[in-house]
């Protein structure tokens, strides 16, 4: 089915998707959080009638607008890229994935784009309350946009609520609510959006700290810090809480991702969580030559990974090798066996299609029955995607097994950087609030510098978060069902290379423009309303 696919096409298509997604995600989290922060500030203005709060609102709203435009620009590519570069995937899951995308357009995008116009152009055209409502609806619309695409992403990590239809050779939705409310989707939505709130809060307190460091607009800066810190602190706790939920979910549905995030090659009971560490040797070497200790340096906390994964310090967490080669004691099926079973499922589908074409009704019906038989589905169809790695030569098959391990080093570092930074932000918000309440914030220059430098760190945390989520699940586009090789559009590698570079150049140009405009507006300060 996919034997002849050029691997460089897959890599360039992945590169292009990663480029657009990561670039898009530079701007989206700020939109998600700053929308609410602006709406909160405007609420205070409407409640108190104090024009100082209007000035504050308009300053941050102005930055919101600059950031929003580029987020929109990059968002459109992502939606269409599912079709342009991943057309086989689009068909395979279109019945499920398309629905959230269409709902997103109907419900969220229009809400966002309608009310943002009122937000910017309506100050002297509509009533104060209608304007405030519009600001809230813009923020809610932005977050609703995130809901549906994250539901779709969560479904790819943990496909639920569907069944495979052999006649159309695709997955079809059976239960919309199961797709929408799967724990993976709920955790992903809350974890991702609240992490956006944290980034936006860091952005607000960091820029306010810059004003304080330059002894400019101090009232404005302090008021902004209070709103940013409180909002940020609440959001950070939500991020931690949902992060814990996400980890348990990963342990259940994507154990390979969890093992990679922690560099756990050999499963154990009371598995340790690494505070940080550095591997010895490359990913490939560690896979091919098993060693007692895979780290050159690490700080482990005993039992913590077991607790994180299963809520029990003494529980067992499977390692990469247990999954690759199986573990009878813990009832873990080897990847080699999964590949063989996946191959059976794929062959059955082929035979079914042949029977359909040749009009062999008896065979057609008997094979169709298999796709409705729960036991067969659980034994073979569950591993459908693994079949792509099948090779009749046992040696080659053994070698193919290793392709099912994600890049461990990237997953490990991304995960630990994300978690470490999240913890740092709690401290930053707490300290900022403490010193602001004590009215000593403008004199605590070291903290102001920390707040300012937290801005790039918050962006780093966002990017690493997505790296864990997406690199950690490789090679799957849809967990256990479809890998990147099967999903890609049949176009020339040269075409994708060309568009990759065109995107890269366009994005860099736009990013330079955005940052320059943003910095100029920040330096102008709130006095002129940021205009």
């Amino acid at each position, binding site marked *: 089915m996919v034997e002849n696919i050029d691997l460089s096409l897959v890599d360039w298509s992945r590169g292009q998707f990663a480029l657009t997604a990561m670039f898009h995600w530079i701007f989206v989290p700020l939109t998600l959080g700053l929308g609410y922060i602006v709406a909160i500030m405007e609420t205070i203005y409407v409640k108190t009638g104090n024009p100082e709060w209007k000035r504050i609102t308009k300053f941050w709203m102005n930055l919101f607008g600059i950031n929003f435009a580029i987020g929109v*620009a990059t968002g459109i590519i992502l939606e269409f890229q599912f079709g342009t570069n991943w*057309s086989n995937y689009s068909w395979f899951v279109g019945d499920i994935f*398309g629905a959230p995308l269409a709902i997103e357009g109907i419900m969220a995008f229009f809400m966002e*784009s309608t009310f943002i116009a009122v937000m910017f152009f309506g100050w002297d055209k509509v009533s104060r309350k209608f304007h405030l409502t519009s600001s809230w609806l813009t923020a809610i619309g932005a977050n609703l946009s995130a809901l549906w695409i994250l539901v779709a992403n969560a479904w790819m990590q943990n496909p639920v609520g569907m069944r495979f239809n052999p006649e159309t050779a695709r997955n079809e939705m059976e239960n919309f609510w199961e797709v929408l409310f799967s724990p993976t989707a709920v955790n992903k939505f809350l974890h991702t959006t609240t992490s956006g709130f944290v980034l936006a809060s860091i952005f607000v307190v960091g820029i306010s700290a810059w004003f304080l460091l330059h002894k400019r607009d101090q009232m404005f800066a302090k008021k902004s810090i209070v709103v940013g810190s409180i909002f940020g602190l609440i959001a950070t706790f939500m991020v931690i809480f949902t992060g814990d939920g996400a980890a348990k979910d990963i342990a259940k549905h994507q154990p390979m991702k969890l093992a990679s995030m922690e560099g756990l090659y050999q499963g154990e009971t009371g598995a340790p969580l690494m505070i940080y560490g550095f591997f010895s040797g490359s990913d490939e070497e560690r896979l091919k030559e098993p060693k007692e200790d895979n780290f050159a340096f690490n700080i482990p906390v005993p039992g913590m990974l077991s607790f994180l994964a299963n809520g029990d310090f003494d529980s067992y967490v499977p390692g990469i090798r247990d999954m690759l080669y199986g573990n009878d004691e813990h009832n873990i099926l080897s990847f080699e066996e999964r590949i063989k079973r996946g191959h059976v499922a794929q062959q059955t589908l082929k035979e079914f299609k042949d029977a359909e074409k040749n009009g062999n009704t008896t065979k057609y019906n008997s094979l169709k029955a298999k796709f409705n038989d729960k036991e067969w589905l659980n034994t073979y169809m569950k591993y459908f995607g693994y079949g792509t790695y099948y090779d009749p030569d046992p040696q080659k098959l053994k070698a193919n097994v290793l392709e099912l391990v994600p890049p461990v080093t990237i997953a490990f570092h991304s995960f630990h950087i994300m978690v470490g930074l999240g913890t740092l932000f709690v401290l930053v918000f707490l300290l900022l609030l403490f010193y602001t309440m004590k009215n000593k914030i403008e004199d605590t220059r070291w903290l102001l510098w920390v707040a300012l430098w937290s801005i790039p760190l918050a962006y780093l945390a966002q990017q690493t978060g997505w790296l864990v989520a997406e690199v950690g699940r490789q090679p799957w586009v849809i967990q256990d069902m479809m890998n990147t090789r099967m999903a890609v559009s049949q*176009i020339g590698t040269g075409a994708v290379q060309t568009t990759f570079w065109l995107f890269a150049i366009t994005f860099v140009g736009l990013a330079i423009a955005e940052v320059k*405009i943003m910095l100029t507006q920040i330096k102008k300060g709130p006095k002129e309303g940021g205009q």
Partner: protein
Amino acid sequence: MFESLSHLALQEYWWVLVSILGAVLVFLLFVQGGQTMISCLGKTEVERTMIVNSLGRKWEFTFTTLVTFGGAFFASFPLFYSTSFGGAYWVWMIILFAFIIQAVSYEYRTRPNNFFGERTYEKFLFVNGLIGTIFLGTAVATFFSGSQFSVSEMNQSQWEVPAHGLEAALNFFNLSLGLAVFFLARVLALLYFMNDIDDDTIIERAKKRLVINAGAFLVFFLTFVVWLMLRDGFAVNPDTGEVYMEPYKYFNNLIGMPVVLIMFLLGVVLVLWGIFVGIKSASRKGIWYAGIGTVVTVLALFFLAGFHNTAFYPSTYDLQNSLTIQNASSSHYTLTAMSYVSLMIPFVIAYIWYAWRSINVKRIDKEEMSATDKDGHVY
């Protein structure tokens, strides 16, 4: 409610919804049309600012409608989505690039220290207006002229020409619709400016431009329609699903669906009336006639492509690989679930209408554009 409908009824319902989105999108392309005339209608800085701001308060509707059009197609007819986007790669990529550079241009154009400079952002808007309209029109024309793709038994599609969609733009039939859409967008933009901008000089210039652009639109539109009525079309045998060529298929569809015929004629008349009102009278209402006329006409064209046993995305490589609303659609369950979501559409239209009215309550004029002490946001 929707559960009890047949799969075909749901497919038809979603074809109507997708068609409505497409039709509204073509109307909203007036933003793109206007972007191609910023410098010829605005000779001074403040005139250009008025024009840009008149469009700038609406560009997101067009953009969002395009995205929703794509999303709705993905959800309801995923095989079209995967076949067309993954196959006609270059056409869609060119359209995408044209829209990326638009999205930032309004917000960044007059900002200090904006890296590219004001004129570059205006050029971005021009490029978006030119390419966005022509290529979208060309892509839609392939609904009638067909494309060279194949679909395997596993429903995996493949484009069979190395140009990956660019070949569509070299076909004069397709191009005639592309150019008709381009000039229609300009006509609608001129009528919109007459409605939205309070400036005699701009209105005067717009009136003059309207004559030329309306003429060009009519030439290309009539070329397309005559060609469409005379050409063979892609018919589907409803019993066997077999696709075959039928002479005068789209003319037959028009006659076979009197409602669509009436819609088509009514739409065209409304567009012409809107243009006439714009040229000959002092009324500002031309955009409403032409706008509604555009929506109704495009809707009729989409119905011609998808209904009356017609393949809406034909394959000239292998007729039997052609896509119909039946073989390209989502499952009964998904269409049902989405149909419930579609019940929100009137509510969405209502709030868009309300917000649009509240922003357009006062026409754009020089005073508003040059006022820096007020609360207004000027691009």
